[in-house]
């Protein structure tokens, strides 16, 4: 809201001569009738459409007969006025009519009141410059009592702020003046007997601290020095904060030095935690060997003393040894459990997918004289196999050894099929099972360029005889055969 032009005029009496007879405002484009009655052009034009008379003297009048008055125009241009920064918005006035006591005393309760929102009062800290009406705008544009937004406070100022800006300023002392003082200052009620009641809307101070509001241009420089929102560096972290928040920030600044309660050394706040956990010499700590059983506690600076202490050192070694022994025992136990588990898994695998062949060779002494003994054949996945022994080796190189083989009957082998076998051949020790000899193989049958696969030097015949493998002239050979893979090589189907 702008201060009305009429309010700016110093000699209020002059307004009565220079106002439009219709709208009662200061003449903007003055026009007069032949008798000199003045109206604003727009008002008299409207009036003449209804009635071709001067509204004041009722002389006959038409638009063509209206005339300018150079004197009045000049008079208005030269009116002495204050600028708008001479005034500020006062509290809204509530006007109650008062007239002869006979009416007011007995009937005031039934009378209404008029709520005047546009109450402009003189701003004690405002501009006192007087200019002519003609030069008013030029002056106002450069008036150093004009207002600017403080560059440090928030930009999204609410619309209310512009009207309240004087309240935020330090010269708001007239806010709490009584109504009469306001009215006199305004010059509205001079010499009248109207009662003016100050409307107490105490809404100032509510939006305090959000922003500086509008500051007079002439006060800006000074304001920026003391502005609660001026940027201020934290002396510890060197980051920028607004002045009113700097104390709160410093209180919590990570870079602020603090005294360690224990060692009394000054430490930056953010490093305090690691100082206590890693380096404070006065911090009570556990012995590094506490995991191994040492229950000593001492301040950190005594750590070396403790570690170098002979008694403590031998104690630590004892703890380490105990720990180590226990670990080993646990490890062995775990290993045994694992082996056991592997064995069980192997057996389970064999049971589902394997074949166990047990070959009892009776009359070993008689068989041996034949040099070669062959088992009955058995069939695995369509392939016919048999086991065989060469009692005195199968070549000159293996003389004295028993050679053992798993043979495939190649003539009966199905075409286009192959078997990948994992198998072992065991000479069972009948005196002590744990001494049995086991030979292990992974072989793809049929074998390229051969019939069987085994060990040419499986066991010395002498060992077989004297180490308890033969009992009652009987040798027991066991073979576990596991089919690891069935391989199929297939052709195009024959055409019909």
């Amino acid at each position: 809201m702008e201060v009305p032009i009429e309010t700016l005029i110093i000699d209020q009496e002059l307004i009565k001569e220079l106002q439009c007879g219709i709208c009662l405002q200061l003449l903007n484009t003055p026009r007069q009738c032949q008798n000199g009655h003045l109206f604003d052009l727009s008002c008299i034009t409207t009036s003449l459409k209804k009635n071709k008379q001067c509204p004041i003297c009722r002389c006959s009048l038409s638009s063509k007969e209206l005339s300018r008055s150079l004197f009045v125009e000049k008079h208005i241009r030269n009116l002495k006025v204050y600028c708008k920064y001479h005034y500020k918005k006062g509290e809204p006035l509530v006007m109650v009519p008062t007239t002869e006591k006979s009416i007011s005393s007995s009937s005031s309760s039934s009378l209404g009141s008029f709520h005047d929102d546009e109450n402009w009062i003189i701003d004690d800290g405002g501009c006192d410059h007087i200019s002519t009406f003609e030069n008013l705008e030029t002056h106002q544009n450069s008036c150093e009592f004009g207002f600017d937004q403080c560059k440090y406070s928030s930009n999204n100022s609410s619309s209310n702020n512009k009207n309240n800006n004087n309240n935020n300023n330090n010269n708001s002392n007239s806010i709490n003046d009584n109504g009469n003082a306001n009215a006199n200052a305004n010059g509205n009620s001079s010499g009248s007997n109207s009662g003016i009641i100050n409307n107490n809307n105490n809404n100032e101070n509510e939006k305090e601290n959000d922003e500086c509001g509008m500051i007079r241009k002439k006060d800006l420089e000074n304001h920026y020095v003391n502005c609660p929102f001026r940027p201020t560096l934290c002396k510890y972290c060197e980051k920028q904060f607004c002045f009113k928040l700097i104390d709160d920030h410093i209180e919590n600044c990570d870079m602020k030095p603090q005294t360690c309660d224990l060692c009394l050394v000054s430490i930056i706040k953010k490093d305090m935690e690691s100082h206590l956990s890693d380096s404070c010499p006065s911090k009570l700590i556990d012995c590094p060997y506490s995991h191994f059983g040492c229950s000593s506690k001492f301040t950190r600076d005594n750590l070396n003393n403790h570690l170098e202490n002979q008694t403590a050192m031998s104690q630590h070694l004892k703890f380490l040894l105990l720990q180590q022994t226990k670990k080993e025992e646990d490890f062995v136990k775990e290993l045994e459990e694992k082996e056991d588990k592997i064995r069980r898994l192997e057996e389970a695998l064999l049971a589902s997918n394997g074949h166990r062949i047990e070959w009892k060779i009776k009359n070993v002494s008689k068989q041996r004289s034949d040099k070669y003994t062959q088992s009955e054949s058995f069939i695995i996945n369509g392939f016919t196999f048999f086991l065989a022994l060469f009692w005195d080796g199968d070549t000159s190189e293996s003389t004295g050894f028993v050679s053992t083989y798993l043979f495939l009957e190649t003539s009966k082998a199905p075409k286009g099929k192959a078997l990948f076998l994992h198998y072992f051949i065991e000479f069972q020790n009948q005196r002590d099972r744990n001494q049995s000899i086991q030979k292990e193989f992974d072989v793809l049958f049929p074998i390229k360029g051969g019939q069987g696969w085994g060990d040419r030097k499986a066991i010395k015949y002498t060992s077989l005889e004297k180490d308890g493998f033969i009992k009652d002239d009987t040798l027991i050979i066991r073979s576990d055969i596991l089919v690891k893979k069935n391989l199929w090589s297939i052709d195009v189907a024959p055409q019909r």
Partner: protein
Amino acid sequence: MNSLPKRIIKETQRLMSEPAPGIVATPATDNLRYFKVTITGPAESPFEKGFFHLELFLTDEYPMSPPKVRFLTKIYHPNIDKLGRICLDILKDKWSPALQIRTVLLSIQALLSAPNPDDPLANDVAEHWKSNEKDAIKKAREWTELYAASSE
């Protein structure tokens, strides 16, 4: 209420701060174009010591059209009928936008001092006034005591 012309605000301010003698006009709080008016009966008239209540309404055309004014208090007057309607030229064809609420109310106050039975609105009252002015004035005084004694 925001669209209230400055002229009406200015007139209201002046009515409140510099009331005309014997006239009180106050806008209604909910409608600033509607005024409650009290006119004190002029001295040496049959309406002396009476408080006459009126209502005054400013139409949207105001000030290019006259305000609408009506007596609320019963009054025995040749230019005011029993509904309170007033026969006054400036409220009709003689209206001028240079006139104001204040001048209208002063004219009504003057009409109380100087009844004009030759331009009647209430024919029977006007007849009474012309045939026996003394008796008519007596009746007007009785009505004033009867209906306009209280300022409420």
